[in-house]
């Protein structure tokens, strides 16, 4: 077999000491597989949401509860955070200035937390209005799908924190690089899921 070529944005071919190229490749491929399984999870939650749209059982429904403007700004924040994460990856690949890598990670973290804050506020408003998951099948489905994404963002933010500590401790060693790359995949994946949530849940909700 010829040596596998690494074409990932954040990694440079060669220059690995502790980890050989093949191992890095395997590690990243494995993470793709994980994301596939995670995508199934979201697909199922979307499917359940779709079947439960009508099951409002007298509790507040989509049109009454969804605020399109806050969902829109959340989308913008998350998209921007993906962009800044991408900047961090580029900095890692080209030149590898720690300042940029870390700076952009910090911006991403702040954006992620902003997103979470806005989302928490949405939920709080809904709960205040009496739109709680124990009211109807529809609200149950909503409060399964959207907070699951939120929990993933929480995980992503914690992961950024861990990676910042690791960058401080080890610099950009191979394992840190690989993990930053995986985290990037995860972060962009969450963006994709959010776009689906924005269209399927919020846009569709206010259009009906």
């Amino acid at each position, binding site marked *: 077999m010829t040596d596998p070529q690494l074409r990932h944005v954040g990694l440079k071919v060669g220059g690995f000491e502790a980890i050989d190229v093949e191992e890095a490749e395997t590690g990243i491929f494995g993470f793709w*597989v994980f994301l596939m399984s995670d995508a199934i999870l979201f697909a199922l939650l979307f499917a*359940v949401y779709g079947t*439960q749209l009508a099951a*409002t059982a007298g509790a507040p429904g989509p049109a009454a509860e969804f605020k399109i403007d806050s969902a829109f700004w959340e989308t913008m924040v998350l998209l921007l955070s993906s962009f800044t994460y991408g900047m961090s990856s580029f900095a890692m690949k080209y030149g590898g200035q720690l300042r940029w890598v870390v700076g952009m990670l910090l911006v991403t973290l702040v954006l992620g937390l902003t997103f979470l804050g806005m989302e928490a506020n949405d939920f709080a408003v809904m709960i205040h209005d009496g739109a709680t998951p124990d009211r109807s099948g529809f609200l*149950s*489905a909503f409060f399964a799908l959207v907070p699951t994404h939120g929990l993933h963002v929480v995980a992503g933010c914690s992961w950024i924190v861990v990676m910042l500590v*690791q960058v401080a401790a080890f610099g950009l060693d191979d394992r840190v690089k690989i993990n930053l790359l995986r985290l990037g995949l995860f972060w962009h994946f969450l963006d994709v899921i959010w776009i689906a949530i924005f269209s399927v849940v919020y846009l569709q909700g206010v259009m009906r």
Partner: protein
Amino acid sequence: MTGSEIWTTLLGRFEWSDLPFVRAWEKGTLSEAIGAGAGGVVVVGAVLLVALLTYKRWWKPLWSDWLTSLDHKKIGIMYIVLAFVMLSRALIEAVLMRTQQAVAIGAPGLVGPNHFAQLFSTHGSIMVFFMAMPFLTGLINYVVPLQIGARDVAFPLLNSISLMLTAGGAGLMMVSLAIGEFSTGGWSGYPPYTEAAYQPGVGPDYWIWAITLSSIGSTLVGMNIAVTIFKKRCPGLKLMRMPLFCWTSLCTSILMIFAMPPLTVATLMLALDRYLGYHFFTNDLGGNMMIYIDLFWLFGHPEVYILILPAFGVYSEVISAFSSKELYGYVSLVIATMAIAVLSFTVWLHHFFTMGQSADINAVFGIATMTIGIPTGVKVYDWIWTMFRGEVRLTPPMLFSLAFIVTFVLGGFTGILLAMPPVDFVVHNTVFLVAHFHNMLIPGLLYGMIAGYQYWFPKAFGFRLNERWGTVSFVCWVSGFYLAFMPLYVLGLAGLARRTQEILEPDFRPWLLVALLGAFLLLAGLATLFVQLYVSVRQRDQHRVPVGDPWGARSLEWSVAAPPPEYNFATIPHVGRRDPWHWRKANGGAYKPADHYRDIAMPRNSMVGPVVGLSGAVCAFGLVWHIWWMAAFGLAVLWAAVIARSFVRRTKRVIGAREVEATDRAWLATAAAQQVHPRELETTSANAGLAELHA
């Protein structure tokens, strides 16, 4: 805080009467006494185990040689040990159920309705999640890296975490015997019956969290094995050159990646319903139980192929080895395996034909179901042709394979019957179905696992299992199966509903007695397997096969010593065709030293696996009993362990080239000193693992 508040904070909803011993004391019924006995066995067993480990000073070796090991071979063996332990429990429960039905004809029998319901729920859940899954995962873990010429799986630590999560779930199953009670909702846990409105107690929660731990473990295993097969094959081992067992393992692991999430989603949604008052599957406020049923069987049907495909792989290896022939129709077997894997996602609805879809939908799924018979039929013919004019030896693994072919085809026929919705409407929910799926799973899974265990045992431990006891066990397993389950076809057609605790029709008695006899024979089958193990360990010095190729087989795992060194291969093999080991033997390339030996880096032990498994189980236990501090603590420890691990930089241990060379040369010297054994003497002490070569 009052006393009761402190109690609730510390111990959640636990009360003294949750202990089966207290219940048995208070109520004094036979049913409760049996429950207390079972709980007692768990407690006494645990105490004895601890005592034994302490007395023999085995704690340290247990910890550093096994529990923290990341060696795929050891992890595989631990999976199989777990499977045997759980098999013993689930089989005893099965015998108890058979006894109950045989004696409770117009009489209450031994166990009450609630207890009986717990029995079939634990039996089914254990057999599927804690016997079958660990067994096949163990075999895959042990064999696949060796067959693809790799030194380990792609993610050794993840492997250990998966094992420990599964073990944690199994532990929870065992704890449920001694503290509290189990779900009465069957292995499928259908809501709304498992909702808080009908079963507010801890039973369904035990089920939910045990299953969740195991399903997460299985998802992770699936990813690990799939990535291993895609990325870690040795040079030249193209996909179409892999042994068939690797193919079935690959399909199984892909199925795990895609089919386990629906189960996780279903059980977690049920948990949301029960814990936070959600309305996914409740009767009121827009809940819809059909969502659960769809999710469950979206997992459930692929699951049966997760269970059966590895056994197909074992049979392919065993039949080829014990016929001394190349596997017939390799390509068709690969295609059939893939076809089954894909089709398995298109048939889930046949598990609920009677639940109100239109006749057209039922027809589509009925036909889809029947098409699975086609690739399966292809396989059966391929196996038969493999034996044709081969030098067939009826060793125990081969006997199990033959019994499988006949019995599985029979079960397949009844499956085709059930795939016809009108027939299904008649026998749905009767013991006809119970007979059918045992008719698939016992030959299609259990026999395969036993055959694989017997086939690869000499590779793993360096000595053969006693064939005479193996044959005795085979006779018990096969006759037991027919006696235990053929009557159920009759009874099912006569209308005996499944999960029945008391029988009202006296005419059923003879059939139930025959089935009981069969169940005892099955138990004898398991007992004789243990006897076989005991006898073989005692006689190990006469049965050693250090050279490592006792059956004259064809794939790479037989090209190394038995047991193999930690790093499997002194040098990574290069492969030019299918059946590479056979080719090397035929062309004088076997048992040769390498030109160069290099240092080998292997993963260091890690305690993260056991810590994650244990804290996962602790978290689950806290959730079951509403002991919130414990649940939070378990979860925190789990993530802390994972995060701490990501800071560890020295994860590898280097084995020097000198040591590798010395070990390899010592093995080669053993091989050179041994006599070649002819096929006829395979099951005698003439077999030192150096097989005579046939065309």
